[in-house]
């Protein structure tokens, strides 16, 4: 019973073939069952995430969090879902009905689509695409589209402003994210997520810590969580793109955001923390799920930690941080990693890790020193006394 997924799949396949179905039909039915089970498990996990999120926020803010319903408030998310379900469903006048209703579904669906390429244990992966990394980027593009659709179809100027900000933010942060994603691709010599997990004898966070950090930062910006929550800044544009959504439609956006954060954690785990790998996973493959979830939840916790510790950044800072810091740094890192990887061909693992680690640290420290120099110059410029407007001096007309 070490690998229940394969056993159940083989048993079901045998059963279906025994009923006289053609092999193709049996494969289709098996895949459909797999998709349903995976999506259902993720959505149930999503309900649980509501509780995790509220409980962890409470710890960060020195409160108790939900603690009335059930042990440790565990039934609270069920109550939340019920509340969302029985709320009035409002479609604003002038809204584009079809697009308006499609947007929340698309938002949650894109998050579920990401799980298609994340390997959850050895030999168990939705589909082992050989272009897995590019697929992640493509799905991210559809997520951007869903938010634009929500913002535009609501017929509300705040929602539209939120959509504009989304485009600026998500498209900008896609650039450093893709470049940072290229580094594990380069190290693993493959774009398939499974291959990247398999080739991590040493976790890539040791070999490419800077790329991992850039991926984490730009992913947080992609989800639109604090400090990058300009998309739904309450004090500026009320709630941004989902201002008009009520009830379960809002719930889908909320669930999508929570699940997306955990998905980013799982992706980070797969790309930089060895995915399902851990002690004893070769003998008992099902342990891989637990290792993956532990790593994913750790990164999820880091994302929450960042969210509840940092204030929202200003929109021009958000763009400068991306274009003037993250993108150049990611490009230099990619070049340096490619050259170092080639130069270190044939060296021992320890030397390889130490040189790569040193290279990353030197590059990041260099970039930070450059930024610090620029910041002090900028501070001096801003701190200089400004010319003050004075009323014109009355000219004295000399009497002759």
């Amino acid at each position: 019973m070490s690998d229940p997924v394969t056993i159940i799949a083989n048993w079901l396949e045998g059963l279906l073939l025994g009923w006289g179905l053609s092999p193709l039909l049996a494969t289709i039915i098996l895949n459909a069952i797999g998709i349903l089970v995976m999506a259902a498990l993720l959505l149930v996990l999503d309900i649980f995430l509501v509780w995790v999120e509220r409980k962890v926020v409470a710890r960060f803010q020195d409160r108790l969090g939900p603690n009335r319903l059930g042990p440790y408030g565990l039934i609270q998310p069920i109550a939340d879902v019920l509340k969302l379900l029985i709320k009035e469903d409002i479609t604003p006048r002038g809204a584009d009905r079809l697009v308006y209703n499609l947007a929340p579904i698309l938002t949650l669906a894109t998050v579920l689509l990401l799980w298609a390429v994340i390997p959850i244990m050895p030999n168990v992966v939705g589909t082992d695409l050989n272009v897995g990394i590019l697929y992640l980027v493509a799905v991210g593009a559809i997520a951007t589209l869903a938010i634009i659709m929500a913002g535009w179809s609501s017929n509300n100027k705040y929602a539209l402003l939120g959509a504009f900000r989304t485009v600026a933010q998500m498209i900008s942060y896609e650039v450093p994210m893709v470049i940072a994603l290229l580094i594990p691709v380069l190290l693993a010599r493959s774009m398939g997520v499974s291959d990247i997990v398999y080739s991590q004898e040493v976790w890539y966070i040791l070999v490419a810590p800077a790329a991992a950090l850039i991926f984490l930062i730009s992913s947080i910006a992609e989800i639109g969580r604090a400090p990058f929550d300009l998309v739904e800044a309450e004090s500026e544009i009320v709630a941004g793109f989902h201002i008009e959504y009520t009830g379960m439609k809002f719930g889908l956006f909320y669930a999508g955001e929570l699940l997306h954060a955990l998905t980013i954690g799982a992706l980070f785990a797969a790309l930089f923390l060895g995915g399902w790998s851990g002690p004893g996973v070769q003998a008992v493959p099902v342990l891989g799920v637990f290792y993956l979830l532990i790593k994913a939840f750790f990164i999820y916790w880091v994302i929450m930690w960042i969210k509840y510790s940092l204030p929202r950044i200003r929109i021009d800072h958000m763009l400068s941080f991306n274009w003037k810091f993250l993108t150049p740094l990611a490009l230099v890192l990619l070049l340096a990693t490619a050259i170092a990887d080639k130069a270190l061909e044939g060296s021992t693992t320890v030397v390889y890790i130490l040189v790569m680690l040193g290279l990353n640290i030197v590059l990041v420290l260099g970039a930070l020193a450059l930024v610090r120099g620029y910041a002090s110059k900028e501070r001096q410029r801003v701190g200089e006394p400004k010319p003050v407007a004075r009323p014109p001096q009355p000219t004295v007309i000399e009497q002759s």
Partner: protein
Amino acid sequence: MTPVQILFILVAAVTLGAALMVVNARNLVHAALWLIVSFGGVAVFYAMLNAGFLAVAQVVIYIGAIAILMIFAIMMTRNVAGDSSPRFNSSQIIGLVLALALFAGLVWMTLSWSGATTTPMPLDSRADPISQLGSALVSPDGYVLAFELASILLLGALVGALMIAWDRK
């Protein structure tokens, strides 16, 4: 009919229908959204032809960049979204004739090509198409010249955009 053929007919119908809606929709944002459905259909065709890289690149570039840029431009422009001017102008007959002639020409050219009627050889399942594509793009006897030219063109566009946006003090 094999399942692949049924799938092909369904996807083709969706792609063509969406393309028709692009030119037929009154609302420009709707037209752009239909265009995205059409792009998605083309991506499914690529996937069905075992060209996974092309399929994903189609989604990234056409849906993720071009279509979103279009929607952004439309939303930034005032009063364009709800255009109520007539959808057909006086050159509709000429347009129809030209389109039909172009389509007939394309069909004729495709049918006169010997590859259109022969069944393609199945792909070697062990070969990795991505790494082959990658080496072909940078090998001297492959497409390195075209690849580098495209890179320089894009770099030129990048520098040009920078020059336009540069705030000279």
